[in-house]
C-alpha cells in the first residue's frame, strides 16, 4: 500500500518516516547517533540545487545532509493530515 522511496525523492514540505538505512554500518551508526533511524519522522525543508545537500526537519530541529548520505535513507511517505 505505502510506497517506499529514497529520502532524496521526496519534495520540500513532504513528510516521510524512515523505513531503513541502506548504507554501511558506519553511515547507519552515524545517522542513528543523530536520531535518524527507522521510525523517525522527517520533513523535507529544502533541497539544494545541482544535487546538493538536503535540509530536513525532525524532532523540532533541522539538519543538513549530503545528497549521497540522504540517498541511503529509505522512507515511506506520510500523507499530510490537513
Amino acid at each position, binding site marked *: 500500500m505505502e510506497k517506499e522511496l529514497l529520502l532524496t525523492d521526496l519534495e520540500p514540505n513532504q513528510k516521510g518516516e524512515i523505513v531503513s538505512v541502506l548504507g554501511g*554500518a558506519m*553511515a547507519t551508526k552515524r545517522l542513528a547517533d543523530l536520531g535518524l533511524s527507522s521510525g523517525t519522522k522527517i520533513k523535507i525543508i529544502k533541497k539544494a540545487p545541482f544535487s546538493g545537500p538536503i535540509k530536513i526537519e525532525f524532532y523540532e530541529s*533541522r539538519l543538513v545532509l549530503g545528497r549521497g548520505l540522504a540517498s541511503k535513507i529509505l522512507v515511506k511517505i506520510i500523507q499530510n493530515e490537513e
Partner: protein
Amino acid sequence: MRNKKKLNIVLAGQANVGKSVIFNHLTGLHQHIGNWAGKTVEKAEGTLFYKGYSIDVLDLPGIYSLTTYSLEELISREYIAVQKPDFVINVVSATNLERNLLFTLQLLELERPIVIALNMFDLIKHKGIEIDFQKLEELLNVPIVPTIGAQRKGLTKVLDSGIKLIRNSASKHKSLLKYGKEVEERIEVLIKDLANIKTLYPKRWLAIKLLEKDKAIEMLINNTGVLSKTKKLINELEKIHGHDSSIVIAQERCFLSSQILQKVMKITKPKKITLSEKWGNVTSHKFWGYLIMVTILLLMFLSVFQFGDWFSSMLEKIGSGFHTKWDAVFGVSVLASLAWSAIEGVIALIEIALPYIIPFYLILFLLEDWGYLARVAFLTDSFMHRMGVHGKACIPLILGFGCNVPACLSCRIMETERERFLTGFLTTLVPCAAVTVIIMGLVGKFVGIGWALGLYLFAIIVIFILGKIASKILPGEPTELIMEMPEYKQPNLKTVILQTWFRLKKFICIATPVVVISGVIIEAVRLLNGLPFIANLLSPITVNWLGLPSITGILLILGILRKELILVMLATLMGTTNFIEVMTPVQMITLALVSMFYIPCVATIAALWKEFGWKKTLIISLFEITFAIVIAGIISKILTILWI
C-alpha cells in the same frame, strides 16, 4: 567534603548550542587556543576565578556523539573518562532538546558529575515550546540551569551548581535511566566480566561500547574471553532486533530521549515563520541564494583588498623610513644588514597581518557567528563534492584568498584526516593576497585585466582538477556532509573579536620564526654574492624552459619568503616599475603563473608542517614546484605561438 581551591571543568556539547559564547564569557581573555598533543584538533582552555576557586575551563570540540567517528569525539570522551575533570558542563540547546539529549545520555554514561546548561532558553518562547526543566532534572538526576549565553544569564548559577555537586562529594553520577530489558541484561553480564579488568573508564560505559562494536574500546580491552563473550551477546541482540547491534543501542537512546521529551516538553502554539527564517529561505534559494553569496563574497574581498591596499601602503611608508634610520645609526655592514633582514621579516609580517588578515578574519567570523557560512557550505556542497571534499571545505578555500596560513589552520573543521589533508593541499593552490598583488601589478596592469581574471579562472580550474585527482588517489572514503543549519542570529561582537585575536596570535607564532630565519639566510646568500650564482643554476629552467629573463631565478627564491617580493624585487633588479619595457606579455603571464603555484610561502609551509607533518608538507611542496614549472612552461610555449 573536599576542599580544593583549584578545579578542572570541561564544557561539552553538540555543535551550535552556544558553547563558545559561554566559554568566552566565562574565561574572557584568560584563554589559550592550542592543539591536542599530536592531533590536529583545536584545544581551547581558559582560567576563571570564582568564589575563591581557580577554575581551569576546557572547551571540548562541538560534537554529535561520543562514538569513534571523528577525532574530536574520540578526544572528548577520552578526556572526560581518563582525565576525570571535577565536573562537566553540558551545554544543551533548549531549541533542539531531543537531539541534544542523545548526546547528554552518552555523556551521563561516562559517570562524571554533570551540570546541564539549558542554553538559549529565551528562544523557545518564540517557537511556542515549553520545557519543564525541573521535571527533566528529576528524570536525568542532574542539576539543570536555564541559561541565555549571549546575555550571560545563568552562568554563575551553573558554576554554583557544579561547585555544590563537588561539595556533596558526588564524585560519580548515578544514572536512573535504563535501556530496554534485552540490552540491559547483556550490559549487566558484560559488567561482571569486566570486573577484573583494570581500566580508567566506567565499567557500564565499556560494556555499552563493546555492545556497540566500538573498535577503539575492543582494542583497549584486548581480552579474548571478554571479546568472545561480547560477540555472543551481540549475536543474540542482533537476532532479537534484526539490526546491527550498534543501531539497536542508538535506537534505544533515541527511544529513551523521545520518552523523556514527551514528559517535559509541550508545544503550545503553532510555529510562525519568523523574519530570520524568511531570510534563511532567501539565502539558500536556488537563484537568490547564489546571487547573495557571490555578492557577499565579492564585497568581502573588495573591501578587504581596498582597505588592505591603503593600509599596507601607509605602513610601508613608515617601514621604509625605518630602514634609512637603521642605516644611519648602524652604518652599512654585514652584521647590520643581517640584523635588518631579520627586522624586515617582522615588519613584513605586520604589513600583511594588520591590513589583510585582521579584516579578513573579522568579516569571516562575523559571517560565521551570524550563521551565514553554513549557508555557503549548503550552497556549494555539490560543487565541492566534485573535487572530493564536502561543502564545509569552501570556508578554508575562501580564507585562502586572503592568506594561505589561516586557511591551512582552518582545515580542522573537516571531520577526517583525509579531508583535512585534501582541503589543506587545495588551499595552498588558492591565489592569496600576495599572489593577487603579482597578478594585478604585472598582468592586470600591463597585459590587461581580462588576462588577470583569466589567471584566476585558471587557478580555480586547476584546483578543481587536482582536487578530483587527489581524491581518487588518496585512500579512504569521502565523508558526507552532516551539518547543523543554525538560525540567523545577531552576531556576538565579543566572540568575533576574541576569535580573530586568538587566530592572529597563532598566525604570528607560526610565521614569525620561519620568516625571520629564512630572511636572514637569504640575506646572507645575497651578501656572499650567491644570488647570481643561483640565477645561473636555475637558468635551464627559467630561461630555456620557461622563457623568462635569468634574474627571475633570484625572484623565485626570494618569493618563497613572501610571494609579493617577486614583484617588489623585479622592480629593484630591473630598475623600473614600467615592466612592459623589460618583459613581454607572455613572460609576464608565465611569471605570474609560476608565482601562483610554484611553492607555498615559508609561513604556509610552517603551517602545513604543523598540521600535517613534514612528510606531507614535503610532498605538497615538491609536487607544486614540479607542477608549476611544467604547466607554466607549456602555457608559455602555447602563448608564444599564438601571440606572434
